[in-house]
């Protein structure tokens, strides 16, 4: 018999991290993400890992950056206000290409907002929270099983690509309890960071390689390296030379384009013949999936495009499944964030309509069905 257990989304993120080989967690208590830290405090010692409860959100992110620079797979978890405080160190990790995973459990905002209530208001903060142009990957699980598998994938992507990865879930997914079979969800093979090997003479920590991913100089291996938040040359040392500075920055963002196929992931639900396409993530996608079933029972051909990778947005995948749709509906628990990206991609080819809710309650299937009927009438 399968090893079925009841598991909460936040706990699944923690167990997924352990399964991915994470051995370092630094965090700070914040609702509704604290269960991630509590689970890590229990599980990490069992695998010889290190759990540190830090004095604040800034230090938590700082410790994760340090542990990753030390060569470990490192993670933290937080929610809205804490995510804001982590942004400077997150930007540092983006610029210095330091692998790390951040679980952000979205609650009502801004500020303290509604700490125990769900929202999806960090879609733009996850992409643009830190300043300057930077690469970042954001994954959006929509079930407890996916909290587990997407956290594993987050580690695979961050370790392989040297880009920070955010696992973005709403409070409902974080506190959702579902039955999962973890044995069936194990990764076949763990993806490890590429550590620098070979000659130490003339080693460049940010060398421009074919895959645009510089091999990581593991501390103790003897490679001389310089790591900085300043815009830097392949040598690791700062530059303000316009051409060289731009080339250095462009490489880190081009890196994501080069590996777009590896990063992109989404789920399609009855999109082939859909007259009306719904684009949704997290708990809103769960409601949308039920709405598609209900609408189809009423003879309305609805379909769902659910990005599992939110950023970079899987744009070619979305464009490929629009087919004959007459409109796109974007239900999200904010005042319209993901819809801006959909509108940009559709370039006025077809109407893109929002369904927005910021009252601390999840969007229901019935609300989506009613909106679809309104749109099609």
């Amino acid at each position, binding site marked *: 018999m399968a090893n079925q257990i009841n598991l909460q989304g936040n706990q699944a993120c923690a167990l997924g991290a352990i399964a991915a080989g994470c051995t370092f967690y630094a965090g*700070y*208590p914040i609702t509704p993400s*604290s269960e991630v830290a509590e689970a890590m405090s*229990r599980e990490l010692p069992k695998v010889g890992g290190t759990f540190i*409860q830090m*004095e604040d959100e800034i230090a938590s992110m700082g410790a994760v950056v340090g542990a990753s620079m030390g060569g470990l797979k490192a993670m933290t978890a937080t929610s809205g206000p804490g995510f804001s*405080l982590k942004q400077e160190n997150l930007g540092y990790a983006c610029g210095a290409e330091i692998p790390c995973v951040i679980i952000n459990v979205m609650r009502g905002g801004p500020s303290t907002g509604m700490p125990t209530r769900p929202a999806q208001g960090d879609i733009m903060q996850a992409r643009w929270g830190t300043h300057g142009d930077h690469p970042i990957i954001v994954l959006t699980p929509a079930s407890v099983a996916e909290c587990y598998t997407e956290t594993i994938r987050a580690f695979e992507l961050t370790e392989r690509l040297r880009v920070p990865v955010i696992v973005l879930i709403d409070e409902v997914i974080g506190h959702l309890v579902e039955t999962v079979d973890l044995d069936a969800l194990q990764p076949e093979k763990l993806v490890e960071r590429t550590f620098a090997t070979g000659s130490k003479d003339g080693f460049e920590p940010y060398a421009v390689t074919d895959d645009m991913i510089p091999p990581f100089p593991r501390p103790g291996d003897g490679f001389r390296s310089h790591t900085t938040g300043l815009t830097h040359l392949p040598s690791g040392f700062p530059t303000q030379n316009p051409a060289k500075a731009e080339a250095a920055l462009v490489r880190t963002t081009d890196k994501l384009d080069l590996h777009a196929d590896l990063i992109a992931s989404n789920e399609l639900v009855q999109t082939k013949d859909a007259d009306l396409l719904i684009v949704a993530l997290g708990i809103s996608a769960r409601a949308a999936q039920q709405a598609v079933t209900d609408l189809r029972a009423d003879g309305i051909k609805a379909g769902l495009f659910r990005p599992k990778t939110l950023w970079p947005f899987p744009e070619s995948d979305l464009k490929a499944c629009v087919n004959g749709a007459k409109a796109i509906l974007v239900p999200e628990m904010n005042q319209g964030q993901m819809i801006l990206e959909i509108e940009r991609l559709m370039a006025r080819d077809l109407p893109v309509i929002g369904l927005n809710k910021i009252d601390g309650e999840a969007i229901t299937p019935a609300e989506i069905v009613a909106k679809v009927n309104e749109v099609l009438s």
Partner: protein
Amino acid sequence: MKDTGFNDQGHFCSGHNACAGCAEALAMRVVLNEVGEDAIGVVAPSCVAIILGAHPNNSAKIPFIHGTIESAAASAAGVKQALIAQGKNDTTVLCFAGDGGTYDIGLQSLSSVAERNEDILYVCFDNEGYMNTGGQKSSSTPRAAATGSTPLGKTTRKKNMVEILAAHRIPYIATASTSHMGDLAEKVRKAKAIRGTKVLIIIIPCLPGWGVADDAATKVARLAVETGVFPLFEIEDGVKYTMSVGEKTKEIGSYLELQKRYRHLDDEGREGLQAEVNENWERLAEIAGK
């Protein structure tokens, strides 16, 4: 009924959001009673913010700004400077926070407030952990106490915040307990009359967080004082130490046995904590006796 000598001015209202039996509500009642009506408060996210309540159930008569956890002290300094700029120098500016917002994330702004000797009265309701997020450890959590994030017991000592702040040479810092209400009230009165940064740290046994019976909060707070685990004392100008309760009269066991967070401790663990308490008490008494 025993007369507590407490003359309630009604500055803290019924219908507040504290857990039934929580000593923090009592501490707030005493502090707000002594501070009076000419005051403005800033409160960090904490149990005290929850107890103060959200509109329309505000439990304090004075206005409170519910600020951010990392910079409540800085915001209080801003309020005070704004009042001074308008000639309202006598209005008391209060800052309320928990131990997480004082010992951990808020330490930077509190330290800077103390360094500038901003004229605020800062009150830390110290329940030795992040009890409002489900009970994780803070740097105020004592050694050996089990919390959500130290399930086998914390391995390091409680941060000595009183003397860290005293090292800033602020005019007044004191510890207090709801078990000694008269002492608490006297300390608020004394602090209110002083210009500069004043800090009170009040021990608040957390009923669910410490695993204390609903009717035992003040009993546990009293034992914290009587065992010397949480000595009541004042430090003026960073150097003048005065013990408020001059003797410790009980062994630590009577304090520990009322709390589930210490139930994993064996005799050796208890003896280790007793030795720490003895050493700290003797050190404080020696400084105070000079």
